[in-house]
């Protein structure tokens, strides 16, 4: 974030006063991040745009109730977008087979074409590198839970694995991820 840019909290206060320009600034700051999460979850440009728009509309309507101690703005936007995307995934699940073909769309430490060095923030590199160091079955279980919004039982049924195996993968995988992220700090 550039030094002369207003802080998120300042923009949120202006949004609560009905300033569309402040929301535009926040969109410029986080629009790509929110859209990227929605695209990773939904893999559909139109649906991801709808989710992104919903996330910012929700923020616009609820800016007055934002409290910094509850979490960062990006986290708030991500939570709204993820929740909305899971609803969409569950709606789709009722009309088609459950998709478990979640494969990593990144390589550890890789900067993708079209992605500036500024975008490839340290945090993003840390998280990608940490995920890449997990055993593949653990990473897959975590990704299906987080990015597909599936419960442990749904993952077990979808993969044809015992429920206990999936529970262990998620537990050990997230423990390992926690250690790896702490080591990166």
């Amino acid at each position: 974030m550039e030094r002369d840019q207003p802080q998120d909290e300042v923009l949120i206060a202006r949004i609560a006063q009905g300033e569309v320009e402040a929301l535009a600034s926040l969109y410029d700051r986080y629009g790509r991040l929110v859209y990227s999460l929605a695209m990773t979850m939904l893999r559909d440009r139109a649906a991801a745009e709808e989710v992104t728009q919903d996330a910012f509309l929700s923020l616009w309507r609820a800016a007055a109730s934002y409290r910094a101690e509850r979490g960062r703005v990006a986290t708030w936007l991500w939570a709204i977008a993820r929740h909305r995307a899971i609803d969409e995934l569950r709606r789709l699940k009722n009309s088609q087979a459950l998709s478990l073909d979640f494969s990593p769309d990144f390589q550890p430490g890789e900067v993708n074409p079209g992605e500036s060095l500024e975008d490839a923030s340290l945090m993003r590199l840390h998280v990608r590198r940490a995920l890449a160091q997990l055993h593949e079955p653990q990473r897959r279980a975590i990704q299906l839970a987080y990015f597909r919004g599936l419960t442990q039982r749904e993952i077990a049924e979808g993969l044809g694995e015992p429920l206990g195996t999936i529970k262990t993968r998620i537990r050990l995988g997230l423990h390992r991820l926690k250690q790896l992220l702490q080591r990166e700090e």
Partner: protein
Amino acid sequence: MPKSKATRCSEIHKLIPAFVLGSLEGEEQALVLRHLPDCPPSRRLLEEFRQVAEALPYAATLQTPALALKRRLLARLERERLAQPAHLWMWLASWGRRLAPLGPAALLLLLGLLGGWALSIQGELARQSGMVDQLFDQLRDQQLAMAFFTTGEYSRIPLQGQADAAEAWGFLMVEPDESVAMLLAYKLPALGEGQAYQLWLIRNGERDSGGLFSVDASGRAYFLFRAGEPLGAYQAVGVTVEPEEGSPGPTGPRVLAASL
């Protein structure tokens, strides 16, 4: 033989990673929710894993939305802003001043047309935004519930089952000086068709509604509610059975009560 606290903690700690990913369900999720209020070490662990889960979106490959998305979003926000009542009346008043020289009949006709058009926009916006509002409310409740368990700055107030629900029990989690609180209740009787539980906040003999909630098949309820004032302003809380649309004051049997 009842499990020791250490055994129970150990079981809960195994569930917390799946809990923060939202992949627990049913009894396991309820087990975590019941355990957290009394266990600071479990809440600390929850906070640690919550931070891990919140880092996961960074794994998504950065992609750029169409430029038109921002234009559509801003245009929609502008329409919402203009449709707010204060903006509408200012706008109509401004046109009224311009049209005043045409005479009262023309003025009334034009104001009527403009007002009808503006109100129709408001109605359409309200319909479109209803779904998003509902979604946001659910999300905000989840975030608040998580915050209750991770901040640890709340008081726990026991709720006692009353004559019509002697086995019911539960507690309120109240943050000091906050108007938001959480009710957790167990073994409440199943509701009949068209009924809901209604929470009442009692102050100087007056009862303010804290909202409606229902229970799951096992009589369990988690309910975040917002009072009109900080909870310290109230002396007691009660829960009664009411029609599903709610009542202006308690009419049905009382099932839970607590002194604040």
